[in-house]
């Protein structure tokens, strides 16, 4: 009965992360990857079309282990069947690992989402109201949080139950998350493509393809790790920026 809510929240999660983009067109053509930490590249051993190796997943997780805070700006483009144009949004986000994430859309409309501890808070300028959703009363939201953590924090084990994961490119590393058959997400999503920066430190972009043909894309810029987060990053409603 409540599965539609679970799906809704799953899609909210995907919507936050996804963007309309041609994954292959974003693939860089630059020189082979170098690894600042001097380790041998685990990506080179990955086979396109196959699931990522355990070593790769571990390396991705290890990369994030020393990270406590993340902040970045993003550009988001949504191509929806209901609209005759592409909706373009931009804003910034902040993360304190492992459980605190804030998204602020600043243009052309303003809305914010803050997820922390056991609840999620939303605000938009039209209603100018803050809506609080407790995870305890909505396990679907909590499940969505796990997905955020997976994509933003390198914990892919958390979504492995619901998605089939395959490597789609190795330079840069790109992986595709395809909802398993019969899962709630399969009704709404065709796939999620996730690309990493060359040093595997973080996400470069995400692409979401809906089952109905809609696509959304999200590209991250100015990614900073372990830097002091901007004041007011956790304020709902947000400060003007």
């Amino acid at each position: 009965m409540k599965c539609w809510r679970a799906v809704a929240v799953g899609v909210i999660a995907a919507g936050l992360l996804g963007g309309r983009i041609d994954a292959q067109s974003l693939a860089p053509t630059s020189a082979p990857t170098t690894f600042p930490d001097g380790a041998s590249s685990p990506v080179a051993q990955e086979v396109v079309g196959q699931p990522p190796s355990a070593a790769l997943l571990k390396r991705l997780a290890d990369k994030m282990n020393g990270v406590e805070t993340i902040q970045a700006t993003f550009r988001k483009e949504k191509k929806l069947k209901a609209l005759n144009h592409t909706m373009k949004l931009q804003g910034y986000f902040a993360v304190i690992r492992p459980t605190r994430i804030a998204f602020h859309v600043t243009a052309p409309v303003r809305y914010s989402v803050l997820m922390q501890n056991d609840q999620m808070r939303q605000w938009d300028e039209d209603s100018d109201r803050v809506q609080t959703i407790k995870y305890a009363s909505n396990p679907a939201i909590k499940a969505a949080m796990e997905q955020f953590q997976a994509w933003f924090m390198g914990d892919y084990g958390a979504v492995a139950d619901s998605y089939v994961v395959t490597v789609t490119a190795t330079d840069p590393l790109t992986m595709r998350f395809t909802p398993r058959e019969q899962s709630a997400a399969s009704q709404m999503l065709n796939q999620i493509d996730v690309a990493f920066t060359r040093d595997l430190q973080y996400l470069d972009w995400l692409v979401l393809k809906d089952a109905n043909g809609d696509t959304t894309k999200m590209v991250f810029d100015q990614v900073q790790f372990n830097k002091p987060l901007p004041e007011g990053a956790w304020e709902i409603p947000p400060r003007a920026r």
Partner: protein
Amino acid sequence: MRGNLAKLPPWTWAVVLTILLVIAGMTGWSRMHFDTSVEALLPEGSEARESIAFLRDSSMAAKAVLWFRFNGEAGTMQELVAAAEDVIARLDKKLVSGVVRPPRESDALAQVIGLLDNAGELLSQDDLKELDAAMQPDALNKRMRQAYMQLARPEGTFLQEIIRRDPLGISTRILQRMHSLNTAIGYRAQVQDGHLVLPDERQLILVLNAKPAATDVAGSTELVHHLNEVIATAPKNVSITPISGHVHTEANDRVMTGDIGFTGIIDGIGFALVFLLVCRDWRVVAVLVVPMLAIATAAGICGWVFAAVSALVIGLAATMAGSAVDYGIHVYTAVREGEQPYAEARRIARPLLTGMLATAGVFVGFVFSGVPAYRQLGAMASGALALAAFFALSLLPAVVKRGGGLSMPNGMSLVAWGRRTQWVAVVTIVIACAGAVTARGVWFDGDVTRLDGSGAAVLKAEDEFQRTWRNIEGDLAMLAVRGSDREDAARRSDAAYREVSAALGAEKLVSLSAFWPAYETRAENLERWRAFWSEQRIAIFRTNLTAAAEQYGFAADAFDPFFQSLQRTEPSREFPPALTQLQQQFFVETGDGIYAMNYLSDDPGLVQQIREIVQPRGDSVLISKSAIGQAFARSAREETRMLFTISGAFIVLSMLVMTGSLKRLLIMMLPALIGLSVMLAVHALAGIPLNVSSVIAAIVVLGLCIDYGVFTVHAWQQNGATLGRGLVSVHLSSVTTLIGTSSLLLAEHPALFSVGLALTTGLAAGYAAAVLTLPAVCYRFMPNNQEVSACDVVSRGA
């Protein structure tokens, strides 16, 4: 011939009569139908009785849940699903007819969003009133802005399908109503891989359709044993907890059997020690046989009188009539002291019959009760007491070893004892008066669930289950509306929902009628909807909508799904398959039809208001835990009032006839009054309420303590002593009874503990009053042998 008959021993006729009675009783047992439900304890025609019957007969009573969790380190949901599938494969089809399978979630979302296409049949007249206002150009502009903002937000992708089907923002309330149905009932289960799960916490439940009802003791025991066997095969890291009424039935039966066994052993040892030490005669066992024979015979005769006899009543009547063992003790001690058994028996016949009439008198009132179980109890208990007195006086003298006395000194004469204990009597009477005042603080708890002896582990697991899976606080009551078939039940439920909504507001009742009413209602809605959407109105709306939507860049075909839905001409015949789980929560089958279920907060005030609204309909049952508790309490109050009136009059009259003196009657009643007063005071001081069990125990206290009073006064009039020939029968009967009742204080089962507490405190106080207070009162108010009693006449005649 007459001469030969005259030569027969005096007990011959008694034996012949006994044989005839026993034959009647045994044949009665063979045709007896047992009623194991508790509804027999509620007044005929009462709503509480209907509620219990509904719960017993409904398919809800046969549901059992298996709760799967991980022990220690959590695994994957796939592991739990595999464990659940393995359990399903092992279930015995003789005990479990099937497992509730929710529809797979893959089809659910499309079906749920597709509900918006059914807007015409699901929106009511009140909803339509808002359409006109929403179609105005200004309102449409505002709505398009809102829709655009929704698309921009994270959930926009999901909301798009809804927005395209609901450009006016009104149809969406269908989904809100559906959502509120689920949240109001309050379980958090989601569907994953065809199972009900809490995916984030890696937990899963299986809902089983069990064949035995939860009220079936043997069936529940078999089911629970089977489930435990299946659970034992689960992987080591998976814990499976059964949650079901069957678990309570099995546990209560097991605990009660264990307690009774333990009490029986203690009782038996106590009885054997006391009697073998005091009597030194194996034939004393016959004393025990007397009440057993009486109960079996009386219950059997009831099998001829009543169509179905409550099993609970047989147990209660046996407990009451168990006090008749005292008659055997009185006869036994009298016979052992004399040389002529039947003469000795006749000597104590009047006090024994006086005590018996007083105790049986308590039950005479029950015969006039409106509660079937109480009527049976009245007939069975008073019959068993009368038979026990008859068997004790007519058969025991022939069995018991005559003469020789008892291994007990006579002690002090009662006259001396009465003179010396006057101050003790004053103190005990003062204590009893203080107890009577304190007893005003005692209250009756009609909640029978507090007599549940399932044990802490079962209750803790259920509490944990509720905290994990439920998302609302407090209990829910149910309004069940009966129909001949599902559609009829839905139609009647719609009418009840409309009545309640009009009087109290729609939010008071969680009803499927608010979301998916009966076909008839939906057809009316659709007709109204189609009449509203005339071709001209559609054309105007399309123009206005296009103008408003263009400002925000909506595509030309963005709202086509809405306009297509306006073409529907027939309401859906079938409930959406994705919502079958919802349907199962709102329809329940019983033996007499199908009930449409509505839910409400179990607030006594609200339950009463809704009862007053739906009662005239005659097709509804209100099932409320608080109301059932209140009904038990009300029934107990009314029965107690009636009991006091009828039984009080019977006891006073019969004792007046037997004793011929009001003063003596009051003195004889003194131990009973003190016993009850102390019993109630102890409950009040300990903060323990009375319940159904303790009220029954109070009646036993009344009966036995009257016996103590009668026999103490009798001993006083016989110039008896404190021990030996005098109060020996009172000592023996009370000590053996107290050994048994005090062992109940160790009982694990709360109902038995309640009985133990009431009996032990009441009987101990009554016994103390009989021994410590009564001789002094007799000394003061009945100077020895100054008054010639009927008892004396009988004894002197003998």
